[in-house]
C-alpha cells in the first residue's frame, strides 16, 4: 500500500449486524478530514492544501481508503502529514508522548475521532490501530495536565472568530505554534484594529507540559507592537550603552549578579 494512503474502518453495532449508521460515518469522515487538515497545518505552517480522494470503499463494516493527492502547487507535505497523523493516532491510543507542536485545539479534534463509539458504532480502526476508550482516556490525561499561570506571550494576531464567541489565534514567532486566545468584549475594538499585527497579550495562560507556548490564553490585556521597520535593530545596539555594567567586564558582571 502506498505511503500516501490512510485506511479507516468502522464496525457497526451487533443489533445492526455490524452495518454502520450513516450519521456515525458522516461525522467520523468530517472529523477525519479535520484531523488531516490540522496535521498538515502543523507540518507545513501554512493553510492546508492536500486534496484526498477515495481509493476504495466497502460496505458492511464501512472501510475507506483515502489517498492523498499532490497539492496543486507549492511544497508537497503528504508524507510528513500522514506520518504525523498515523503517529499521533497510535501514540494517543498507546498513551505515548505526541508531537509537541499539536495544540489543544488539534488534540480536541483527534478526540472526536472516537465519537462514533458513543453512538451506534462498535469499533473504530485507523490503519492498524483500534481506537478504544483508552484513546480518550489518554487524551484526557494530556489535556488535564495543563498548568495555568499568569503571564504574557507575543505573536501575530489572526483568525478572529466572533461567531457566538470572542476568540483569535496568535501565531508565535517560532513556526508550528499557534495559541487560542479568548478575549473579553471590551477588547473587541482593539482586537479588530490589531488583525495581522504583532501583539503581546497578558492573562491566564494554559500550558501543556514541555511546550514553550501556551495552548490557550484568557486575555485580560493586549498591546499592539509598532511595525518592525520602526523599531531599533539588534545591530544598532552595538556599543550604544557603554556603562550598562557599571564599568565591569561583561562575564564578571553577569556572574556577580547570578552569584548574589
Amino acid at each position, binding site marked *: 500500500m502506498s505511503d500516501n494512503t490512510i485506511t479507516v474502518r468502522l464496525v457497526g453495532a451487533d443489533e445492526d449486524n455490524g452495518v454502520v449508521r450513516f450519521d456515525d460515518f458522516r461525522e467520523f469522515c468530517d472529523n477525519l478530514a479535520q484531523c488531516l487538515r490540522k496535521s498538515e497545518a502543523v507540518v507545513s505552517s501554512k493553510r492546508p492544501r492536500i486534496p484526498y480522494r477515495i481509493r476504495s470503499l466497502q460496505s458492511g463494516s464501512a472501510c475507506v481508503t483515502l489517498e492523498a493527492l499532490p497539492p496543486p502547487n507549492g511544497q508537497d507535505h503528504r508524507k510528513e502529514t500522514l506520518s504525523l497523523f498515523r503517529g499521533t493516532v497510535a501514540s494517543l491510543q498507546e498513551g505515548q508522548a505526541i508531537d509537541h507542536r499539536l495544540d489543544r485545539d488539534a488534540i480536541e479534534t483527534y478526540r472526536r475521532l472516537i465519537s462514533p463509539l458513543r453512538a451506534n458504532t462498535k469499533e473504530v480502526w485507523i490503519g492498524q490501530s483500534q481506537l478504544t476508550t483508552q484513546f480518550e482516556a489518554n487524551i484526557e490525561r494530556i489535556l488535564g495536565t495543563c*498548568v495555568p*499561570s499568569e*503571564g*504574557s*506571550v*507575543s505573536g*501575530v494576531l489572526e483568525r478572529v472568530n466572533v461567531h457566538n464567541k470572542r476568540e483569535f489565534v496568535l501565531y*508565535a*514567532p*517560532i513556526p508550528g505554534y499557534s495559541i487560542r486566545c479568548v478575549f473579553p468584549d471590551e477588547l473587541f475594538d482593539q482586537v479588530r484594529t490589531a488583525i495581522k499585527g*504583532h501583539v*503581546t497579550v497578558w492573562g491566564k*495562560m494554559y*500550558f501543556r*507540559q*514541555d*511546550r*514553550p507556548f501556551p495552548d490557550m490564553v484568557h486575555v485580560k490585556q493586549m498591546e499592539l*507592537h*509598532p511595525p*518592525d521597520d520602526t*523599531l*531599533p*535593530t*539588534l*545591530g*544598532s*545596539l*552595538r*556599543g*550604544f*550603552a*557603554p*556603562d*550598562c*555594567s*557599571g564599568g565591569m*567586564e*561583561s*562575564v564578571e*558582571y*553577569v*556572574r556577580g*549578579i*547570578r*552569584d548574589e
Partner: protein
Amino acid sequence: MFVAWLKEEPDKPLADIAAVAAEIDANEAVLVVPVTVLTEMQPSKFTAEQWDSFQKTLRRSNVVVADTTPAIAERASRLRDRAEAEGRKIKTGDATIIATAVVYGVAVLHTFEPKHINLSGSDVVEGLRITQPLPLSGQKGLL
C-alpha cells in the same frame, strides 16, 4: 552576550556577534531572550533614551521574551539535579536560562561563560548546543 554587545567590549568576538545580530535583523533567525537575562539589565545604568531603545528592540516580531513558566521552572530543577548527580553545581539563574533554551528547542544557546560552554551537548543540558556567538550559517564574522 547582550552586555558585551551593548558595551562593544573589544576582547569579545564582535564580528561574530554582529553576524548573529544581522541574521536576526534580517528575520533569518528568532532570538529567544529569557526574562532572567532581562533582570540583569538595570535601568539605572542606561540613559532614558538608551533604555527606551533597548526595550523597543525586544518588541521586534522575531524576538521572544520568554517568561519562566512552570514547565521551564521544573525543567531547570531537573537540570540542577542531573548536574548535582555529576558533582557539578548550576545556579538557579543559569539553570533557568538553559531550561528556557531546552523548552523552546533553540538551535543554540550563546554565552561567553566557559563553564556553560563546557556543558554543550551533554546529558545534563539534554544535548543543548551551547557556544560563543556564531551565526546559524556557521560563517565566522568578518572584522
